[in-house]
């Protein structure tokens, strides 16, 4: 308020009838200017933040990707060499890409299906919806590092509780985080345990499905499966889309769990005298794209090469989001007036 002593000028302009047009135009211009100033003040944190922490790094990343840069000596222009190395020589990139695709094709659908199934189950409960919702949500709260540590212990091949229990049932448990075949599925188990967020959103959507639609479908002779397919699914499809997009975005950044699991499980093995660099343990089976980017950028300080990897990631992230959103028009139901 005290900021704007100019205010009365604009307000009093209609009082002087003789010079209306010019005065009014002036007042309007002044009001425009004040609004612009207001917007600028309000937006300033974001404008600065976006420029410094987003725009600049993006441009810089693009520039660095054409350079050799180790942080010590100034960047040296190498043209497309980084990209050439990335696409044709680096033996680990394809492993990392394959693993990341695995996450997107197996883990993300598993998460969505599992969250949906859980939500349907909880919605069917006559009693204790609140209780079950809390129980299924709780693991999502566990900090990722803590949850991963817990799972590495639980799935500890020799003495972990899971394999102990499996042993009592007469099943020889797998090596979990210590086996190339089971390391990724173990991460899926960890992800399914922490599915709470998605489940809560699905549950809200499922409970919101209008009762009369389900009932009229039932009167028309639709069985439970048909009601699910033709009533519930179309109505909650926007929520499914949301969770798929989110899942894919998060899959592209998948880092913490893979890093910690490999470090802990690999650390155990290295006590037995294997090599120490645990990233991707065992045998690069948990080497995801962001993990490899981290290794090149911040273990080996190949900043130029890591930037090239970042640019590829940017392109893929952008393209994937676009493809999903455009395709979604075909299968996401949008005719629900609300």
């Amino acid at each position, binding site marked *: 308020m005290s900021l704007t002593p100019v205010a009365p000028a604009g307000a009093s302009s209609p009082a002087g009838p003789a010079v209306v047009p010019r005065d009014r135009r002036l007042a309007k211009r002044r009001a425009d200017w004040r609004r612009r100033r207001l917007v600028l003040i309000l937006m300033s944190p*974001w404008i600065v*933040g*976006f420029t410094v922490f987003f725009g600049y790094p993006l441009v810089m990343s693009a520039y660095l990707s054409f350079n050799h840069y180790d942080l010590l000596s100034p960047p040296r222009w190498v043209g497309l060499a980084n990209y050439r190395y990335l696409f044709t020589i680096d033996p680990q990139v394809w492993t990392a890409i394959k693993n990341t695709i695995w996450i997107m094709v197996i883990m993300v659908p598993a998460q969505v299906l599992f969250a949906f199934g859980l939500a349907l189950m909880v919605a069917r409960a006559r009693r204790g919806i609140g209780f*079950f919702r809390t129980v299924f949500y709780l693991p999502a709260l566990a900090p990722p590092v803590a949850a991963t540590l817990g799972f590495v212990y639980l799935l500890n091949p020799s003495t972990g509780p899971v394999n102990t229990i499996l042993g009592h049932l007469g099943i020889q448990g797998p090596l979990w985080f210590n086996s190339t075949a089971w390391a990724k599925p173990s991460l899926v188990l960890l992800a399914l345990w922490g599915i709470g967020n998605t489940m809560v959103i699905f549950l809200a959507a499922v409970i919101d499905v209008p009762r009369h639609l389900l009932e009229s479908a039932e009167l028309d002779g639709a069985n439970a499966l048909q009601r699910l397919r033709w009533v519930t699914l179309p109505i909650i499809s926007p929520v499914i889309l949301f969770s798929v997009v989110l899942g894919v975005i998060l899959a592209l950044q998948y880092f913490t769990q893979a890093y910690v699991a490999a470090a*802990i499980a690999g650390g155990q093995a290295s006590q037995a005298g294997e090599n120490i660099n645990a990233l991707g343990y065992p045998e690069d089976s948990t080497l995801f794209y962001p993990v490899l980017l981290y290794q090149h*950028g911040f273990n080996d300080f190949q900043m130029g090469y890591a930037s090239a990897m970042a640019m590829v990631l940017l392109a893929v992230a952008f393209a994937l989001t676009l493809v999903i959103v455009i395709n979604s028009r075909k299968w996401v139901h949008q005719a629900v007036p609300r």
Partner: protein
Amino acid sequence: MTSAATTVRATRRRAPASVRRKRFLVAVADHSLLIATAIIFLAPFLFIVLTALMTNNQALSSHLWPHPFRPQNFVDVWRTAPLLRWTFNTMVYCVLATIGVVVSSVPVAYALARVRWRGREAAFIIVLVALMLPPQVSVVPLYVMWAKLHLVGTLWPLILPNWFGDAFSIFLLRQFFLTIPEEYLDAARVDGCGELRILATVVTRLAKPAIAAVALFSFLYTFNDFFLPLLYVGQNPDNWVLSIGLAQFRSLHQVQWNLTMAATLIVMLPVIVIFFLAQRVFVEGVTLTGVKG
């Protein structure tokens, strides 16, 4: 009309015994499946607690139940690792970042929701795009920048960016600001309030639940954050936060599983306590994301 209602009721009540039994059995099946799944979901917590109470020898055996119970582990954890130091660093990071997120995101969200200006929609879309891109995309030049400022190894590279608007919080707050009735704002305007004053008093008061949700999410996010702390303070154990310390805990001095699980529990506990204290804020926040169709 009443008769129709009674007949419906009557027919419902007179559902044949076989149908009723079937319904009952389905309900039993539903609930037993749910209970079984709930047990599986709680089991990891249980095993972590049990292991945290075991002796080291037992943690290495395949026995599942502690014998004897060893609560001493929780004391030993504080002795074996500088947990206090990590907790303090985590609090510095969480509190300063969260204050920054709230202070800087509220005005931006207000400008995007309630002030009319050209380019507003475009700005909002840019915010959303920034939200969707992986942080790894910009991480290399940022690291170089902080390295040149000699701030790598300190908590500042983690805290400072939060003082310049956080995309997710801006999005959440904007959604809430859109629901505030214009009349409240007009009333304040008639009383002679400037826009900044309206924002500082009327809007913030009305948006308390949304601001609480944003603060909570931001706090949890920073508490859980691992990638950025690993990058910026990973090489400097003095500034380790809990997530880094916990990840390094086992390799630190060949620490045993029982102590590791005790530490894991200590890191999990605050979050779970916060959840039970602030359950309503959580629910508010989840509905705010506005994904309900």
